[in-house]
């Protein structure tokens, strides 16, 4: 079957506006899927005392954008808790790239996401969310504070605004295209 799914990731620390961003570009109301995991399996698995195991729920918000009759784009927000890296691994596998939302009041909240995508060579754009008002910093100051590599795009966006969020995704897809090996063309 030729039915194709493609994935984009929206990451960033807690409270950076991931769910808002997903909702503003999605053609459906954002959905939530949950993974139920036991605390014991996060660290050392211990089969004693099963009745006392507390299960933790990892929630993923996502939306969809129909691209063509046979291609659907899914936009996944990463779980709020950074420690569930196994979910990030699944989301990233085969993903076109990621938007890392940045709140200038708490730049450090976005460090883990930036590190994650840099280490795995997954294309990403850092997007300063203007949700909380005008950004008091210059682009260079933010790039420096985030330790962004020169080729990593930095954009400003308002996660509540559909056009603004769509522009951020456009910038990401263009960046992902620029990272493709030279001579990679479609169907020819």
């Amino acid at each position, binding site marked *: 079957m030729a039915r194709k799914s493609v994935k984009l990731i929206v990451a960033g620390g807690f409270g950076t506006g991931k769910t808002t961003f997903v909702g503003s570009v999605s053609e459906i109301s954002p959905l939530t899927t949950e993974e139920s995991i036991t605390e014991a399996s996060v660290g050392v698995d211990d089969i004693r005392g099963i009745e006392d195991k507390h299960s933790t729920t990892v929630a993923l918000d996502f939306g969809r954008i129909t691209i063509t009759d046979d291609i659907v784009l899914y936009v996944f927000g990463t779980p709020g808790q950074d420690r569930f890296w196994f979910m990030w691994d699944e989301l990233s596998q*085969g993903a076109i790239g990621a938007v890392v939302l940045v709140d200038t009041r708490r730049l450090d909240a976005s460090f883990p996401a930036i590190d994650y995508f840099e280490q795995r060579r997954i294309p990403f754009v850092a997007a300063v969310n203007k949700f909380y008002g005008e950004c008091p910093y210059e682009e260079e100051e933010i790039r420096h504070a985030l330790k962004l590599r020169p080729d990593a795009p930095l954009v400003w966006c308002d996660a509540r605004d559909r*056009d603004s969020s769509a522009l951020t995704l456009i910038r990401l897809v263009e960046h992902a295209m620029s990272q*493709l090996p030279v001579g990679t063309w479609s169907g020819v």
Partner: protein
Amino acid sequence: MSRDFWNGADHGDGVPLVPLYVLVNGRTSPRTVGLDLATQVIALKADSGGLEPEYDAIVKRCQTWISIAEISSYLKYPLTLTRILVDVLLERQFLAVGSPAQETIVDRGILEKILVRLKSL
């Protein structure tokens, strides 16, 4: 989670009579390679009667192409369980599967189509 699956305790509302690991024959991971949460499936048979209710609900949800993440969300099944139930339904040929979503996209044409669509949002 609005519906708790069997957690070792046989009491409370909404707990299935059959533990779900029995329903999936103890399977803990899908056998179909590339069954990603974004992978889409579609029902092949209109008649899913006779299936266990959890399977039946999935087949009914798959009358048009739908991703595993969407099935999980609409039916409020945990993601891993949904993946395994879908895997069993694929084996039993109640569902068909689309392209794996875990392949790295190197097709510039797909990215160009995405760009065109995003620009029309």
